[in-house]
């Protein structure tokens, strides 16, 4: 397999300045997905076709008769972003073979967690299995935010949504978050990565790598995008919350390049998950026992990842109380 020749950005100073995503779209103030889309658009070439599954990004950026996109984009239904992207890739291949198109056209599919984890899963699986040369971006805001905060497969354990209400009987979602990355990895894509908006340089480098690798086969990038109304957070907390997700071990930034698993953001001292959970209104009903259940689950996940890498990339929980005791 040939390695794509791109130099990764080393610091925030090297990032491109030119804006390729028009402002004035209707995404909420402080939307995490807006940051991800802005950087995705800076990375890709002009000869790119975007396939937008129904979701927050599609609904808010292409409110007829306006569009925030500077590149051609097609709006498709919730379930078939990957299928339409496969079809466009096939059409481009055929036009190039007939000599009617001499440009190198790339296809990027953008879908939310509902359109990927739940409804669009079989189309995505088919696309990955057939090996279409498509870059698939999943912006994960952990519920169906666009239709009014309904639970999805990507909603975390005990999170409040309108369909998993908090009351006497039910206390948030009963199931754990679906491991979509594991499902995608089982298809052995060319490149797969998870990232968050708080680590911009990391996110941009992963977008670039996925875009370059999509010349050879399917690539997948999973971006955690906090949602202001759905997570019940203040607009200015978006970046802080997504950074805490990595620092507490609730989210791990990693990439799988040519079958090699690599954690890109090392966390030597992990914070307790309560710091991440207590910031969000959707977890405000959690008792200390609930937090301990989540902490235990996160500890197990971290241990599994450390075993997979073969060294301690994500360290043990270091509580603030210890520092106080020393002082």
């Amino acid at each position, binding site marked *: 397999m040939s390695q794509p020749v791109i130099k990764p950005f080393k610091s*925030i*100073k090297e*990032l491109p*300045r030119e*804006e390729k*995503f*028009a*402002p*004035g*779209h*209707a*995404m*909420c*103030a*402080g*939307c*995490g997905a*807006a*940051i991800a889309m*802005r950087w995705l658009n800076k990375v890709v070439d002009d000869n790119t076709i975007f396939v937008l599954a129904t979701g927050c990004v599609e609904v808010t*950026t*292409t*409110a*007829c*008769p*306006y*569009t*925030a*996109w*500077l*590149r051609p984009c097609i709006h498709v239904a919730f379930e078939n972003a990957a299928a339409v992207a496969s079809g466009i890739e096939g059409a481009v291949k055929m036009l190039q073979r007939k000599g009617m198109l001499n440009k190198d056209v790339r296809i990027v599919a953008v879908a939310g967690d509902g359109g990927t984890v739940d409804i669009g899963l079989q189309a995505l699986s088919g696309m990955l299995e057939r090996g279409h040369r498509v870059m698939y971006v999943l912006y994960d805001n952990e519920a169906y935010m666009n239709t009014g905060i309904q639970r999805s497969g990507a909603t975390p354990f005990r999170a409040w949504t309108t369909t998993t209400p908090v009351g006497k009987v039910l206390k948030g979602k009963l199931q754990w978050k679906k491991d979509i990355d594991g499902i995608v990895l089982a298809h052995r894509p060319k490149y797969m990565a998870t990232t968050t*908006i708080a680590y*911009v340089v990391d996110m941009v480098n992963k977008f670039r790598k996925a875009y370059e690798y999509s010349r050879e086969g399917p690539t997948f990038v999973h971006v955690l995008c906090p949602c*202001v109304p759905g997570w019940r957070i*203040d*607009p*200015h*907390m*978006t*970046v*802080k919350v997504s950074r805490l997700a990595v620092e507490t071990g609730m989210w791990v930034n990693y990439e799988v390049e040519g079958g090699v698993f690599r954690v890109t953001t090392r966390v030597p001292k992990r914070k307790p998950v309560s710091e991440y959970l207590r910031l969000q209104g959707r977890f405000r009903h959690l008792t200390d026992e609930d937090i301990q259940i989540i902490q235990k689950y996160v500890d197990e996940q971290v241990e599994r990842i450390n075993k997979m890498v073969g060294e301690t990339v994500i360290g043990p929980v270091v509580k603030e109380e210890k520092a106080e005791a020393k002082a």
Partner: protein
Amino acid sequence: MLPKWYEIPLGGALTEPGSTRKNRTGEWRTFRPVIDQDKCIRCRICWAYCPEGAVKEIDREHMTAKGVKYPITYEIDYYYCKGCGICAEECPVKAITLVREYEK
């Protein structure tokens, strides 16, 4: 002024790229972020995290009161800024303050 239904191309195709620029999303704002150009250390963080791209990086020299010369200046486009406050929250030197847009 929105186009009439018969003016829109067939299939709802949008022919003008980036036409949301006409929308004045600055009207959503309750708090206005103001950059203190003398405090700003040009770290680029506000520019990188702005969801709107409303923090503009401009090639204009600025001399601070202490005599430090910077080749670039950051300005906020109040036409689009929705006032989320991410820039003020993430600024490492607290050079951005949030000012209430309208007095009570």
